[in-house]
């Protein structure tokens, strides 16, 4: 059974197919609105994340399907001590596809190994979050028209920010990209992520100073310093305001910079930037829904649950 746990489970060809499907959905939503009729998506969220859950649920509803939802660990069988494996086996009896978020790293992998239906990892602790990366990729595609030859700045919490790790892994597969890693010393990317770049001789630089590099960037991916990823409150309070993007800083940036953020933001991008045409983070949210729709279609089709998919219109 095909599941998607890591963005690297999808080849670059598959990503480009998903992007084509998403663009077709955007252009012709009516063509897709009944495709998943009588099919059910189970959203198993053992960690709070309203927006990702809503995005999956909206995606399934827009495909004409139904949703079964578990929205907190406290109200579920996990609170009674059921294992992830058993939960996955049980839910497979009710649903055609599962989207799962869990605080433990590797939980979605365990679910996928045990489920009888496709599992989509909707975030496993600080580890992976492939559908956020799908949202990011569609946004880069729609804003830049290419995945190659880009200078990509990633700023903020690069240590615990799983979306950052997945985006680096995904964009490393395309030619000619350069990465600029902007973070305080304590929140630098882990060595295994840096090794992805080193092994493939992909140019990157690490800096603590956003202003010294902002003018070089084609993409600036901001991240939130997340309270729940810290072991203690003191470290969180000390580091949370390290990098804040303001209109003054934006004056130094390229005219076609794309500012991205996986959201929710706290204060790392000032609200004044929302009106700047370079701000892409709300488009990213919408793109996430379209890519989740495309992924649900792909996995249900590969599982044989959907017998056919709408033919894509020629662009």
């Amino acid at each position, binding site marked *: 059974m095909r599941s998607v746990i890591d963005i690297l489970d999808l080849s670059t060809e598959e990503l480009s197919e998903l992007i084509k499907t998403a663009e077709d959905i955007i252009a012709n939503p009516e063509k897709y609105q009944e495709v998943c009729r009588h099919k059910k998506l189970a959203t198993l969220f053992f960690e709070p994340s309203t927006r990702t859950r809503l995005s999956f649920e909206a995606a399934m509803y827009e495909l004409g399907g139904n949703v079964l939802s578990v929205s907190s660990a406290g109200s579920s069988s996990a609170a009674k001590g059921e294992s992830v494996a058993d939960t996955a086996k049980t839910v497979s009896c009710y649903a055609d596809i599962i989207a799962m978020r869990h*605080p433990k790293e590797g*939980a979605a992998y365990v679910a996928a190994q045990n489920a009888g239906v496709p599992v989509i990892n909707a975030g496993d602790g600080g580890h992976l979050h492939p559908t956020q990366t799908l949202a990011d990729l569609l946004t880069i595609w729609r804003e830049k028209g290419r995945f190659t030859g880009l200078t990509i700045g990633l700023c903020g919490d690069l240590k615990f920010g799983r979306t950052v790790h997945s985006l680096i892994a995904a964009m490393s597969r395309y030619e000619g990209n350069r990465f600029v890693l902007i973070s305080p010393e304590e929140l630098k990317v882990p060595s295994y992520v840096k090794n992805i770049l080193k092994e493939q001789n992909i140019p990157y630089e690490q800096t603590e100073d956003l202003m010294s590099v902002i003018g070089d960037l084609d993409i600036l991916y901001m991240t939130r310093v997340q309270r729940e990823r810290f072991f203690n409150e003191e470290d969180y309070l000390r580091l949370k305001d390290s990098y804040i993007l303001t209109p003054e800083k934006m004056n130094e940036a390229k005219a076609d910079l794309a500012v991205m953020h996986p959201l929710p933001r706290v204060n790392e991008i000032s609200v004044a930037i929302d009106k700047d045409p370079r701000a892409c983070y709300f488009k990213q949210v919408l793109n996430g829904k379209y890519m989740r729709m495309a992924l649900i279609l792909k996995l249900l089709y590969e599982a044989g649950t959907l017998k056919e998919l709408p033919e894509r219109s020629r662009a």
Partner: protein
Amino acid sequence: MNVDSIQNGIVIDHLKAGYGMRLYELLGLSDPELTVAIMKNVTSHKLGRKDIIKIDGITDVDLDVIGFVDPDATVNIIRDGRLIEKKSIEAPERLTNVLRCKNPRCISTTEQELPQIFVLSDRKTKTYRCLYCETRAEK
């Protein structure tokens, strides 16, 4: 220093100096029933310094564990006081239930029934990572 040669058993030789105790621990050689000699930091023509483990009475050990700790070690099987086989050792692709993941956020640390699996992620550096959370294994 002399240790009597064994009649039936295994000699794990050419272990990098300092790796002997770790291998002793991972192979479960602290079992009180076993007769084991560890020689640490002895002179070696090949390595300068090396560790050696001699295990009396058993001829099967988990070669994957040896391959994980030191793929350059040699394993000699002794029967009736004679060397009958030299086993070739290499770093295994997968290690099951040998190491425990140290990442407190890993699913394998809360769900006890899951097998503890580590996968060779880089053959050059012999780096192993947890199958579930990709945390690096400590040698």
